[in-house]
């Protein structure tokens, strides 16, 4: 009947506990009346409850603990010879008369503990006998608990150095030998547990088995506490023996746990000095053992140790810790053919972490680790395991975090090779990490070589990779990425113009391969980076006159020209136009009339040929006008040509209001409010009048088309222009003209067909207030404004 295992177990446990309590009661009575015979009889019966096979480890532990408590009382009784009148030697024999082995051995251990305390026999003899006799219990669970009891009662009685039980020469060895033997036997029993019972319950059994692991591990803890286990003994005896058992037991659960245990319980210094032995065991472990975690923990401990004090670092060098670890990892990976890529890479991550913490100055080590990883990666197909990929990212991020400086990483020859093994998505993620690191640390990349390497690293962002599915790209991500690249370009900087020019050329080379989608993001950065160089050169100009300088503004402008041309081919005419204007302005500042003219030409060509959208045209024409207004490098002829073009295009815009606005904007082209700026009042007036005409035409068209004229906004805007030039002293603009315009506006407003519009009313009102204000201010300006009759 397998009805209800858990319920049955509860029942059995309850029965066991009752049995123990019952017999313990009689045992107590016997103890109180100093009756040794009865005490032995009832204690043996009590211990017989531990012979059960029905309980899970968890429940058995419960039972064991109850018996354990009772045995403490028995031990106290045994100690007092006056009470029972039997010498401890005889007692030691007497308890062995018990017919059942389990109670017999529990009693033997209990008396044995008293025996050692009495010092009537050397501790080592008694311990040896006990550990040997315990072989009689081969049942895994019962054996484990029995031996655990033995370990417990003997703990404070080992003939350790400085212990009161220390005998003649070399008794520490006996203590060690005892614990080692008990450990070995316990581990064997523990390993054997998995073969108990039916196969289908294996999983549950392994879980239960895992619960018992600390019983085994406790022995290692005891070993580590033995005073006499110095480095020498650890190296010569303890570690080889423990490892022998670990390797030989061929059980993954045990091997994993015990390796971890060894690493955790013994001092760091010991590990460092026995690295070779410890690591030598790793490739011999079962392929299913999670060695990577074990080794990671070891390396963690060692790196913490290294971090704890600078004094220990020479030790690391002396024992060649890095070489050994690296070697061991290689062997483990070789030995465990089936280890998934993620495991191998995790190992490399740990090693790398170790290296970075222990040997931060040894970049060659870091590169070695990466190289080993590349080797491993190239032996397997491209990674498609997300966990493995994550580990690779961790591997690549570690040096960045450590050095806070991408420049260091750029000197690692294997770094880009590792990146090659990432899938496109992750490659991009990694590239982003690199860029973010640069941004965060404000790292300046200042040589062409490094720039080359950097672009190699982030090439996933720079151009389309083969086989990348474009459809899958997330627009948002793509924008983020490209913006990041754009920001990155600004971090590539060298104060030395020559080198900087080379950098710019390199960046250009790479970014130009980016294709139509990327260029709009990257080119502006590139252009501004180049413009910055130009301004820098401009500042230095005086110093370098006469020398053969490769980096001259002219040369750079040529370059820019090409870049913008490339961009316009993409096509991205609006952006190209803006950049052209920027360049023209820079050329203006450099006093390079021809260059500036060239750029303007480019801008106009773009306007004519590429910009067809009327809205874009409006924006473009305003940009052109704005830039052109600020140019002072042009001679009269060139300037005329350009302004003529600009006004011409303004008047040819599609919508009347747009025309109007562009035209009145053009008025500024003839009136530069500088000391020696052009001041052609007549042409200003011409522009404004033309604008008025267009505004009128717009009103009429609106009347015809919609039956109502539009708002008077355009007029008010023109009025504002009038006022501006009036104020600036343009003789052509008279108070009367302004007065006339105001009247016109008012008439328009009163027109039946006018549409009331609060915005333009407010605009007009505040314009009028301004005039009032200027009038009341008095002085020259006040007088001037007085001429406007309202």
């Amino acid at each position: 009947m397998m009805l209800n295992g858990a319920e049955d177990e509860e029942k059995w446990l309850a029965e066991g506990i009752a049995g123990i309590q019952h017999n313990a009661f009689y045992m107590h009575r016997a103890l109180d009346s100093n009756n040794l015979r009865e005490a032995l009889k009832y204690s043996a019966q009590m211990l017989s409850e531990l012979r059960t096979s029905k309980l899970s480890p968890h429940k058995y532990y419960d039972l064991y603990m109850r018996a354990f408590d009772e045995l403490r009382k028995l031990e106290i009784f045994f100690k007092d010879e006056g009470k029972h009148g039997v010498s401890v030697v005889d007692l030691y024999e007497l308890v062995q008369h018990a017919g059942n082995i389990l109670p017999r051995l529990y009693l033997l251990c209990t008396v044995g503990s008293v025996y050692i305390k009495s010092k009537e026999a050397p501790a080592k003899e008694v311990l040896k006998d006990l550990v040997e006799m315990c072989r009689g219990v081969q049942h895994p669970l019962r054996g484990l608990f029995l031996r655990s009891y033995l370990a417990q009662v003997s703990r404070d009685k080992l003939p350790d150095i400085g212990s009161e039980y220390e005998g003649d020469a070399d008794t520490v060895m006996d203590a060690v030998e005892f614990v080692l033997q008990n450990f070995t036997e316990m581990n064997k029993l523990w390993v054997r547990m998995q073969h108990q019972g039916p196969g289908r319950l294996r999983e549950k059994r392994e879980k239960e088995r895992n619960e018992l692991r600390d019983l085994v591990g406790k022995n290692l803890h005891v070993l580590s506490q033995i005073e006499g286990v110095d480095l020498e003994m650890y190296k010569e005896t303890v570690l080889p023996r423990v490892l022998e058992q670990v390797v030989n037991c061929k059980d993954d659960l045990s091997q994993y746990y015990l390796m971890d245990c060894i690493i955790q319980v013994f001092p760091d210094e010991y590990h460092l000095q026995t690295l070779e032995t410890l690591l030598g065991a790793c490739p011999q472990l079962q392929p299913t053992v999670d060695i990577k975690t074990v080794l990671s923990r070891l390396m963690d401990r060692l790196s913490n140790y290294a971090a704890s004090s600078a004094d220990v670092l020479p030790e690391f060098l002396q024992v060649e810790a890095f070489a050994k670890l690296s070697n061991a990892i290689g062997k483990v990976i070789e030995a465990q053919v089936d280890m998934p890529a993620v495991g191998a890479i995790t190992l490399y991550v740990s090693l790398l972490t170790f290296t970075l913490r222990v040997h931060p100055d040894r970049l060659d080590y870091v590169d070695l680790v990466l190289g080993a990883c590349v080797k491993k990666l190239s032996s397997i197909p491209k990674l498609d395991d997300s966990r493995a990929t994550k580990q690779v990212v961790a591997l690549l991020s570690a040096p960045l975090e450590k050095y806070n400086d991408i420049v260091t990483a750029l000197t690692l020859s294997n770094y880009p090779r590792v990146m090659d093994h990432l899938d496109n998505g992750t490659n991009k993620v990694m590239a982003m990490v690199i860029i973010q690191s640069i941004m965060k640390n404000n790292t300046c990349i200042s040589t062409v070589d490094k720039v080359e390497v950097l672009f190699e690293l982030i090439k996933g962002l720079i151009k389309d990779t083969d086989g990348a599915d474009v459809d899958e790209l997330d627009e948002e991500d793509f924008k983020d990425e490209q913006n990041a690249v754009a920001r990155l370009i600004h971090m590539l900087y060298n104060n030395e113009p020559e080198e900087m020019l080379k950098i710019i050329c390199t960046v250009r080379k790479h970014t130009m391969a980016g294709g139509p989608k990327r260029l709009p993001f990257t080119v502006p950065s590139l252009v501004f980076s180049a413009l910055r160089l130009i301004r820098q050169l401009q500042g230095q100009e005086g110093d370098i006159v006469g020398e053969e300088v490769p980096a001259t503004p002219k040369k750079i402008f040529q370059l820019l020209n090409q870049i913008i041309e490339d961009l316009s081919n993409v096509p991205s005419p609006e952006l190209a136009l803006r950049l052209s204007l920027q360049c023209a302005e820079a050329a203006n500042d450099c006093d390079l009339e021809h260059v500036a003219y060239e750029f303007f030409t480019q801008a106009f060509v773009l306007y004519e040929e590429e910009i067809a959208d009327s809205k874009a045209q409006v924006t473009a024409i305003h940009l052109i006008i704005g830039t052109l207004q600020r140019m002072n490098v042009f001679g009269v002829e060139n300037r005329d040509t350009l302004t003529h073009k600009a006004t011409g295009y303004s008047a040819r815009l599609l919508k009347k209001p747009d025309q109007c606005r562009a035209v009145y904007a053009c008025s500024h082209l003839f009136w530069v409010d500088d000391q020696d700026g052009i001041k052609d009042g007549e042409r200003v007036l011409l522009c404004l009048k033309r604008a008025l005409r267009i505004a009128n035409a717009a009103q009429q068209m609106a009347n015809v088309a919609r039956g109502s004229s539009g708002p008077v906004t355009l007029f008010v805007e023109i009025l504002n222009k009038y006022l501006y030039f009036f104020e600036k002293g343009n003789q052509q603009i008279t108070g009367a003209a302004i007065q006339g315009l105001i009247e016109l506006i008012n008439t328009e407003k009163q027109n039946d067909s006018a549409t009331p519009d609060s915005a333009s009313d407010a605009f007009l009102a505040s314009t009028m207030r301004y005039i009032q204000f200027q009038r009341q201010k008095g002085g020259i300006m006040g007088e001037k404004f007085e001429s406007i009759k309202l």
Partner: protein
Amino acid sequence: MVALFQSQENIVGEVVIEPIQGKKVEHNGVKIELLGQIELYFDRGNFYDFTSLVRELDVPGELYERKTYPFEFSTVEMPYESYNGVNVRLRYILKVTISRNYVSNIVEYQDFVVRNYTPPPSINNSIKMEVGIEDCLHIEFEYSKSKYHLKDVIIGKIYFLLVRIKLKNMELEIRRRESTGSGPNTYVETETLAKFELMDGAPVRGESIPIRLFLSPYELTPTYRNINNKFCVKYYLNLVLVDEEDRRYFKQQEITVYRLLET
């Protein structure tokens, strides 16, 4: 409480006869006998006297008052030990007889016990043996000695060479085999005196299990090889392995038990 002697001892004592006050006892002589008897239960009534010694204490006459007769059997040969078995008893008796005419003799008995001690044997080999069931179970066991004194300890070990069956436990039994009679009338009685668990659970190949069994708690006698052609008592160690289906696999080995001469 009974007196204890060993072979070659002098058995000295006195017999006191005290007639009832004011009466006389007329007799045809008084004698004391020392008898060694073997009594077989299935043959009730038959005693075999293997030893019979007589001392005349008095010539025929009359007794009026209490009279003491000293007696002595010098260096009596008592080769066999007193024994109280299942089917047989070996006893020593002192028998005093007052012979009378016409009326029955007056007879009194006094039992005493004989134990004979032996020095440690000069040759005491270990018992070592490999046994097994083909492809199933192979073990090698060793008992350190083949001859044990009554307070001895059996030390040994069992080494598992091959284990293909699921063992549950292993015991060591001490068995006593008492055989009486001879020929077709032989009666054999086997008793298990001790059941001592040596191992709990299933061992794997290569395990070695220690044996340490103290003999003192058990009521053993020395081995009696051939007592006057009437009976013999032998001891065996029986190693029993029990599997999970409660099948028992065993191997029995004779050991010799002796009474150690304490020095």
